[in-house]
């Protein structure tokens, strides 16, 4: 499959290039024997494009531009070993005749080829939907874009000739000289150089990532994103906050989890977990773990103090957390969401080091009542490792009361403050294990358990006991706190 005659150059979008990259393997297996264009290019070589009709390719087709249709875009995928180990050395590259032929129209200046190229370049762009923000006048934008590219196509012939005269000065393709000039004129020149440097240094994926980033920034700046009734901003959560947390999850706390098959992939469910570590890092990490493994957002229920705290409350709302009240939990479960709850609350979060991994009282059993009303399974979850991130030696109650906090912890890291400065306050890198236990199906507790306090407390204790056992089991299995 290394026959140079198979090389094909009709790709005009990143998407196709990406597809080509991904499809390389299949193409090597499949191969293909399609007919080639019979025309000669201006440089005197055989045209390498696939024949579309009449033994001619798109560029050399004898028809007039009006009847032309968009060329088969799949063509590029026939190429084996495409961009794989391609050296990024742009400086040494000279425009290859066969290729500049298809991109800029024939240098001999037959206007037909140019028009075709222009139309082709316009087509994928007008069809593509860059911004999903429902802004008005998008169709108008598309039209002007097309007009602009058509003009670019017209200019390209001239630019090509200029290039040929100057001996192909520089790596830039002649067909884009117009747009490049525009950009330079606007003072983006250095930015372009920077982008090219970065692109050479990085992979192809750099372009994809950059495009994603720019789209995201545009959405954020213009407010073109959706939030749900609870204020959950999925765009922000999955594109900014979770990527920020992921290094903590993977490399700092090295979370391993098992039993993810117990988390339902669709429909409501109530994750019930232990809470520890002075700061609610375990809630964030569990949330991320569930998302990475199942693609579902576990919506946290938070104490009202969370929503009173500046910045924290704002972020909590935007990541989809809501107030731990029966009203909100019912509403979330009724809409089929996965809900996560830490029933120990601040009592679990702010418990002293000597009480580590001892579950505190599980609230008032409200979560059982909620699960029974919605008839969803309860998934007991044990988190090992969160206790050790901030071991709480003392609780300065007086300070806490003055500041209005539920507790004011003194952690060992504070003693390193004079030496290490603010870095001392980083959480300790303990090794985490998360276990999702067997779900307690709603059939095992009736719908009316919410009206029966005895049964409710009983079931609450069962869930608590089960999580406690899971904690002990995982604690026995771990080699050390940090490894």
């Amino acid at each position, binding site marked *: 499959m*290394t026959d*140079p005659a198979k*090389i094909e150059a009709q*790709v005009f*979008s*990143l998407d196709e*290039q990406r597809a*080509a990259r991904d499809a390389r393997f299949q193409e090597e297996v499949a191969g293909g024997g399609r007919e080639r264009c019979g025309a000669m290019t201006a440089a005197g070589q055989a045209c390498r494009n696939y024949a579309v009709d009449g033994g001619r390719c798109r560029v050399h087709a004898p028809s007039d531009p009006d009847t032309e249709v968009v060329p088969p875009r799949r063509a590029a995928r026939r*190429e084996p070993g*495409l*961009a794989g180990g*391609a*050296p990024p050395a742009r400086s040494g*590259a000279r425009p*290859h005749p066969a*290729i500049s032929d298809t*991109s800029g129209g024939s240098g001999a200046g037959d206007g037909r080829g140019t028009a075709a190229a222009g139309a082709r370049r316009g087509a994928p*762009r007008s069809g593509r939907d*860059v911004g999903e*923000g429902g*802004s008005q*006048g*998008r169709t108008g*934008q598309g039209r002007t*874009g097309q007009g602009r590219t058509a003009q670019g196509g017209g200019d390209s012939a001239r630019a090509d000739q200029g290039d040929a005269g100057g001996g192909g000065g520089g*790596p830039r*393709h002649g067909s*884009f000289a117009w*747009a490049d000039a525009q*950009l330079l004129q606007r003072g983006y020149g250095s930015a372009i150089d920077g*982008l090219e440097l970065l*692109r050479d240094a990085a992979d*192809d994926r750099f*372009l994809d990532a950059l*495009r994603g980033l*720019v789209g995201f920034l*545009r959405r*954020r*700046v*213009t*407010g*073109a*994103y959706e*939030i*749900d*009734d*609870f*204020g959950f*901003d999925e765009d922000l959560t999955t594109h900014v906050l979770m990527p920020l947390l992921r290094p903590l999850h993977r490399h700092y706390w090295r979370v391993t989890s098992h039993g993810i098959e117990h988390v339902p992939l669709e429909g409501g469910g109530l994750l019930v977990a232990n809470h520890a570590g002075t700061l609610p890092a375990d809630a964030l990490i569990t949330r991320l773990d569930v998302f990475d493994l199942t693609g579902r957002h576990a919506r946290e229920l938070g104490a009202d*103090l969370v*929503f009173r705290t*500046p*910045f924290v*409350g*704002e972020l909590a*709302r935007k990541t989809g957390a*809501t*107030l731990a009240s029966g*009203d*909100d939990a019912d509403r979330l479960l009724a809409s089929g969401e996965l809900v996560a709850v830490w029933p120990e609350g601040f009592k679990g979060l702010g418990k002293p080091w000597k009480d580590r991994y001892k579950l505190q009282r599980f609230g008032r059993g409200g979560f059982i009542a909620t699960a029974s009303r919605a008839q969803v399974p309860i998934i007991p979850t044990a988190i090992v490792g969160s206790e050790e991130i901030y071991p709480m030696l003392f609780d300065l109650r007086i300070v806490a009361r003055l500041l209005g906090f539920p507790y004011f912890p003194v952690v060992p890291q504070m003693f390193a403050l004079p030496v290490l400065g603010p870095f001392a306050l980083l959480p300790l890198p303990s090794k985490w294990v998360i276990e999702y236990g067997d779900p307690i199906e709603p059939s095992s507790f009736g719908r009316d358990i919410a009206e029966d306090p005895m049964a409710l407390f009983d079931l609450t204790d069962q869930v608590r006991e089960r999580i406690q056992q899971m904690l002990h089991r995982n604690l026995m299995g771990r080699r050390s706190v940090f490894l």
Partner: protein
Amino acid sequence: MTEGRRVLLTGVSGQFGGLVARALEQRDDVLEIVGIDVREPPNDLRRTEFVRADLRNPLVGRVLEAAAIDTVLHLSLTSQPGAAGGRTSMKEHNVIGTMQLMAACQASSVLRRVVLKSTGAVYGSAHTDPALFREDSTPRIPPRQGFGKDAGEAEGYVRMLGRRRPDLDLAILRLANLVGPRVDSAFQSFFALPVLPTVMGFDPRLQFCHEDDAVGALVQAATGDRHGTVNVAGAGTLYLSQAIRLAGRVPVPVPLPFVSGLSAALRRSGRADVSPDQLRMLQFGRVMDTTRLREEFGFEPEYTTRAAFDDFLERRRLRGMIDRDEAVRLERELYDFLQRKGQERFLESQRAGQEGRV
């Protein structure tokens, strides 16, 4: 009753009252419209008769009898102390006025229906709020002052009338913040500021109701037969930060301790009439559940919160520093650029591969 309604409107000279009166004039099943206000109505109303009276005036009772009014639409609760001539007179009008009006309604023998235009502010705004307020949810921290408290008390008088006269149909409509091209509201003056002060570290969820929807819901309440309390708002929510970005404005986060001072300064300078209860709104926001409106009340708002806000921006010609279309265009340009670079790179790699093999 069968041939049509005789409606009495309070607050007819306000912008919103005028819109409702005009909408009622369009309807054939409304025979007579009587408007009451302390000012002359600036709107060009055709069929509406106007009575210049304060709600606390005993004249109101006589009008009810003389015109054989069977439906009272109480629209004159005001939220802006500046426009009402101070907080004291605002409260006097809102609470005592409603009390007197309900007393007159109780005495009327032909009256069938009372509709109160209330507000979502009765739920207050606090960190203990549920994500969405249902009509029957009671806020853990009720509003302690301002418009929300007034409206809560006014609703109390209307409900008391319902207890004393069980034969009357009562409808209480709790409207979200109104936005639209014609009615001035607190948010209108807020978004007219050059830079928008926000509370640092807080991003409230807002919900808007387009004025057309509000008028439609009130007309339906006046001419229909549904009763009870209902939330009126567009579907969905917007963060304040998102609304500011949609408007292309620049937010200026103000630390919480300085917020009340700044709002007092703004009030004194007359640039924005932001009352303390609205400040809490800027901190915690408020969203109402509109299921009952759609399913029981049978009214489908035409505008979502987002659409209402967009319409408000467009028709008020609020142009910000950042133009949305411009941003889309810039992105498209960059996208084109990247695409082009991607092509070049691809072609080059092909070329390199080709040369390597030949």
